[in-house]
């Protein structure tokens, strides 16, 4: 039962699965940061229309299950509306998985950034204005540096959750590690070694998530704003 040979026989596939997970997580990290930043600038903007749109986006996306978001991207937008990134099906499904995961994570990034801005006391901005800094200057030199430093740890949590969420892309025809695991288990020839397989996958995810958590925790402590 604890025979690791079947695991090593399939290790190539599993590693390819983790590589696919990493590619998805990397692209989604960048794109969700962009989406989150744009949305938070909408949510805190002085223009009511933008604020409404930002709030609406966050409330809708955050309360929809990620499975549904990803399925809507792959089955709805890609298959039915034929909005394809590429004619190669694996490429277009990859990019739709990136877009879906980023759209979902972006809502959480937006909320995290907003809470970072909210931690700054009003006095900081008032002091900045009273010494004659313009809006851009006070944003660049006073507000954003403090906001970014206070959200390092929560952003780490969002990143870790996003890495774990890449598995849901299995529902949207993207061949990451959860789908690979399922394929291997479903093989009729694969009868032994199911425990080593799951242990390996679990440890793989712990290797991705735990150091990320400790790193962001260390960074947050180092960069904390004394207040």
């Amino acid at each position: 039962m604890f025979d690791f040979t079947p695991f090593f026989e399939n290790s190539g596939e599993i590693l390819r699965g983790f590589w696919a997970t990493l590619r998805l997580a990397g692209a989604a990290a960048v794109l969700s940061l962009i989406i989150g930043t744009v949305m938070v600038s909408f949510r805190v903007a002085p223009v009511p229309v933008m604020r409404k749109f930002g709030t609406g986006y966050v409330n809708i996306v955050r309360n929809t299950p990620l499975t549904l978001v990803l399925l809507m991207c792959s089955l709805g937008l890609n298959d039915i509306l034929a909005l394809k990134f590429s004619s190669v099906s694996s490429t277009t499904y990859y990019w739709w998985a990136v877009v879906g995961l980023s759209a979902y994570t972006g809502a959480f990034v937006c909320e995290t950034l907003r809470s970072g801005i909210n931690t700054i006391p009003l006095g900081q901005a008032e002091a900045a204005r009273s010494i004659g800094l313009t809006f851009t200057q006070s944003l660049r030199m006073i507000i954003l540096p403090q906001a970014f430093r206070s959200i390092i740890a929560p952003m780490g949590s969002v990143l870790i959750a996003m890495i774990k969420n890449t598995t849901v892309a299995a529902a949207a025809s993207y061949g990451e590690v959860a789908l690979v695991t399922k394929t291997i288990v479903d093989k009729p020839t694969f009868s032994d070694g199911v425990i080593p397989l799951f242990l390996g996958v679990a440890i793989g995810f712990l290797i991705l998530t735990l150091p990320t958590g400790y790193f962001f925790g260390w960074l947050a402590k180092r960069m904390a704003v004394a207040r």
Partner: protein
Amino acid sequence: MSREANVLFDIPGPRARKRNRLLSVLVSVVLLAILAALCWRLQAKGQFEKQLWTPFTEWTVWRHLLLPGLLNTLKAAAVATVLALIFGAVFGLARLSDHWWIRLPAGAVVEFFRGIPLLILIFLAFFVPNKISPAIAESPFGQLQRMSVDYFFFIFGVESNAGVVTVPAFAAVVFGLVMYNGAVLAEIVRAGVLAVPKGQSEAAYSVGLRKNGVMRLVLLPQAVTAMMPAIVSQIVVLLKDTALGFIIAYGEFLQAGFKQVPANYHNNVLQAGIVVAIIYIAMNMSLSRLATWLEGRSRRSRRTSAKTLGSSGPPPAPGMTRQATGEPGAA
């Protein structure tokens, strides 16, 4: 908000007001243009056909597909919530134990289940027992396996046939939800107890209470009030995560609304997705409202001296000291 100063912008003057109006128009035009492009695409692909939308106005569709699915979702969520709360309370308190041989294993269990994806946990419960049970049935543990299935796990629909244990999708989903959310709730419980000021336990010890009494009579009652909003928001995450049952074909709401309905009614995937999403959003937002309301109540409450744990997210990942602001649920 619009009439008062905040960190990012001042009260708008005449020039700023003019600029804001211009921006409003501009943004509205852009958003409407995107919406129009989408509608044009939908029209081009014939997605406004009446037959694609009407299934959701028919009572038979609701009665035979959507409502049973919704019931299954709520059933899994309810069972998982109860068990996860028990798991969370036990492991959260175990992590606060004075004995290292309780504290460390409990910590390892909590970090393990928090660190791996929920879907992998669900797969674990769904695929593994079926594969390994024949081997166990022949080992000295065979009797134990048979008895645990016959006397306990049958509650969740687990079956044992000639040594092969089959876990139904419902039990697999519940297992995953309990382990993951239970681990997060354990962290919430721990954070809640730690949020009670030290003076409270010192005072309790000084009037002669023992460890058990301090925890039961002084710390926990205050901690529960403080962590209520965080618990409710974790239940929102749990409810949302039941949708992962879709992947192992558990007949929950997403399976019913997004797979069964399109399969029977002209593949109306987009329409089904929109209707299903609206219902999920309504359910989750009303639960979130409850969390916000509880948070306000708890902050005003004089029954606790602990600082309220925000409803905005579970406790931070390992190594992080600050309160996280929002961890996306898995689904």
